[in-house]
């Protein structure tokens, strides 16, 4: 069978030194840490994002000429994992840093890089992902939003949905049809940048089951944008979007969403836990230690330019399942689990409930569990 390889990687001293700096920064900025979870989507705080930009911790791996730090993927990983573990509000800049920026670096034109990347690095310019549509979920190639070339402009019509933070972000990069669908459904797709504040897209918030209003429906009715907004080459959208998703899948945000529940669980159980409590704590830890190392292995493969599509899907599959398991394990540890009133009104309970309500999204966003298992099966040579 094809070997799935997760290399042994030890982070270097410089990276560990950076970790200490991030921890100091986190301590100095505690006023920004209000959310009771470590989910990467829920904490939106532009002021905090700008502070990270000043530190040089956004766009860390990008070339200096675009405002980047030219640092390693390991440096970036350490910054992101420290912030998530602490429950930092990172959602404002998260997508731009993780996904949109790398996409523009890989496929964008020189003008696009110069125009968009410096603002992202400063923590001032925020991006949304325009992939899903009302009739397009996992079957991404079925998108119907169209961008028709008319002279020097594209005319965009259609609807994107589940678009995190479109109501407050600056740009959305949409997967659109620039040619009608043919037999090869992956042809004729392109990615186009739309200015959410200026181009006339209509944004309607969608309240989620946790009460949050992070995601939206974005409607384009004859939205006209200049033709230089196409990312890379017209018609190359499918290849671009697939590579973009690999970046999205293996980072620490795929197994740390429920981490604050673990912290409060350990606090609740105290220094001398019962045997059962200690067993639960150890079980959770054994998963985190392993997932974290697998994620670092993937960062190492990205660093050396390897194809990580399958390995990244594997980390996300394991990580998302674990993020859902964690609160399930945590709720059972009081003398009578959560029916024990000692949990009432404390941070453990609040963190648990907050994370539980977000948990259905863990195995949906960035590719559903079912899609990921398909990606893994393909990597195993089964399709």
């Amino acid at each position, binding site marked *: 069978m094809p070997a799935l390889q*997760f290399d042994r*990687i030890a982070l270097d001293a410089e990276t560990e030194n950076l970790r200490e700096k991030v921890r100091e920064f986190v301590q100095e900025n505690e006023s920004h840490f209000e959310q009771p979870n470590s989910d990467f989507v829920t904490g939106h705080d532009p002021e905090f994002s700008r502070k990270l930009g000043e530190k040089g911790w956004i766009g860390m791996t990008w070339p200096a000429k675009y405002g980047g730090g030219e640092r390693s993927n390991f440096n970036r990983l350490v910054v992101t994992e420290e912030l998530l*573990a602490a429950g930092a509000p990172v959602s404002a800049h998260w997508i731009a840093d993780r996904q949109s920026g790398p996409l523009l670096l890989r496929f964008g034109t020189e003008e696009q890089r110069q125009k968009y990347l410096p603002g992202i690095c400063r923590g001032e310019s925020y991006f949304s992902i325009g992939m899903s549509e009302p009739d397009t979920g996992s079957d991404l190639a079925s998108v119907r939003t169209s961008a028709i070339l008319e002279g020097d402009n594209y005319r965009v019509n259609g609807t994107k949905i589940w678009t995190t933070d479109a109501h407050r972000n600056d740009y959305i990069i949409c997967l659109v049809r620039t040619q009608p669908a043919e037999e090869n459904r992956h042809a004729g797709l392109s990615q186009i940048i739309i200015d959410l504040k200026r181009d006339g897209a209509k944004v309607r918030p969608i309240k989620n089951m946790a009460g949050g209003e992070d995601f939206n429906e974005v409607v384009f009715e004859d939205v006209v944008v200049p033709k230089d907004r196409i990312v890379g080459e017209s018609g190359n959208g499918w290849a671009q979007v697939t590579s973009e998703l690999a970046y999205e899948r293996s980072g620490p945000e795929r197994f740390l969403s429920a981490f604050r529940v673990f912290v409060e669980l350990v606090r609740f159980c105290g220094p001398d836990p019962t045997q059962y409590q200690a067993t639960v704590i150890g079980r959770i830890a*054994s*998963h985190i230690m392993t997932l974290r190392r*697998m994620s670092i292995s993937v960062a190492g493969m990205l660093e050396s330019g390897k194809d990580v599509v399958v390995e990244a899907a594997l980390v996300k599959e394991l990580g998302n399942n674990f993020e859902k398991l964690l609160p399930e394990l945590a709720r059972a540890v009081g003398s009578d689990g959560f029916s024990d009133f000692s949990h009432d009104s404390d941070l453990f309970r609040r963190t648990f409930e907050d994370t539980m309500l977000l948990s259905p999204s863990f195995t949906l966003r960035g590719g559903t569990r079912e899609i990921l*298992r*398909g990606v893994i099966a393909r990597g195993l040579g089964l399709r």
Partner: protein
Amino acid sequence: MDRSDLTSLIADSAEKILSDFCDKKLLDQSEAGVFAQELWDEIRSNGFLDLGILKEQYSSQDLFAFLKICGRYAAPLPLAETILARGWFPDALLDESGVASIGVADGLEVKRVAWGRSAEWLVAINIEGSSLSLFRDFEVVEQKMNMAGEPSDTLKIGDPVSLIELKEEPFAQMALAKTNLLAGTLQSVLDLGLLFATDRVQFGRSISKFQAIQHSLAVVAAEVAAAQRAADAAVDSIGSDRFIIEVAAGKARVGEAVGIVAEQTHQIHGAMGFTHEHQLHHFTRRLWAWRDEWGSESYWQRRLGEWLSRQGPDNLWASLATPG
């Protein structure tokens, strides 16, 4: 020859020997109580029993990589025991060619001794202790077998030949050995699942084309990948002050993978995998036996959890986020 050349040379020659010898017939004979002497001699003459003793020549990574390969072929011999015991008692055992096995001390008895009936030397370990004793004088009190049909005997001991203290808890070292054996066996079970699903035709096509089967195998592959990484991390902690913590995480995580991988792979194999004639059970029964030997998941989870609880909630992340 540089290090990586030596490492791959060890792996290649181990693969060659074990794939030549470890067929279904040998595994069946072994379960009938026949010691695989020819395989033992081949392994000994190729120097593998010295992996723990010649510390200048071989690294601990070489040793545990060899055990992973032993796990992949379900090598039916007390190799982990003999290799570790020789490393612990080099003066007494360097020139010995027979089995040195290991068990858990319980008063005047030593329990769960792998191939105790064939052992010439015996090491008794205390759970969570650092001391261990070497015996030449012992007798078999009771012959038993584990779920995999491997001898797991109770021996009565006389006076020890030698008594030493180790920096790294011997019980945990054996857990690390089992962790790597398990990681190797898990890989084989995945491979068997992929092979069977590809070959087996139902409803006019290979069952590997059914989404339900593909998803099962994806889950199995994810668990197997996690097990490999967890086992490697535990090996890499040898010599560091995190040794116990990393072995705890490794044995616990690999043990958890066992439950999922064995269950799903048997389901994929259908009734054929439930027969004695099929080879799958030689691997899955080892998985089930070994996950409980030298500390089950709950044992190691508890030790890891107790340690983390002492570090406290505000040091939790720092206790997990290691450089390596």
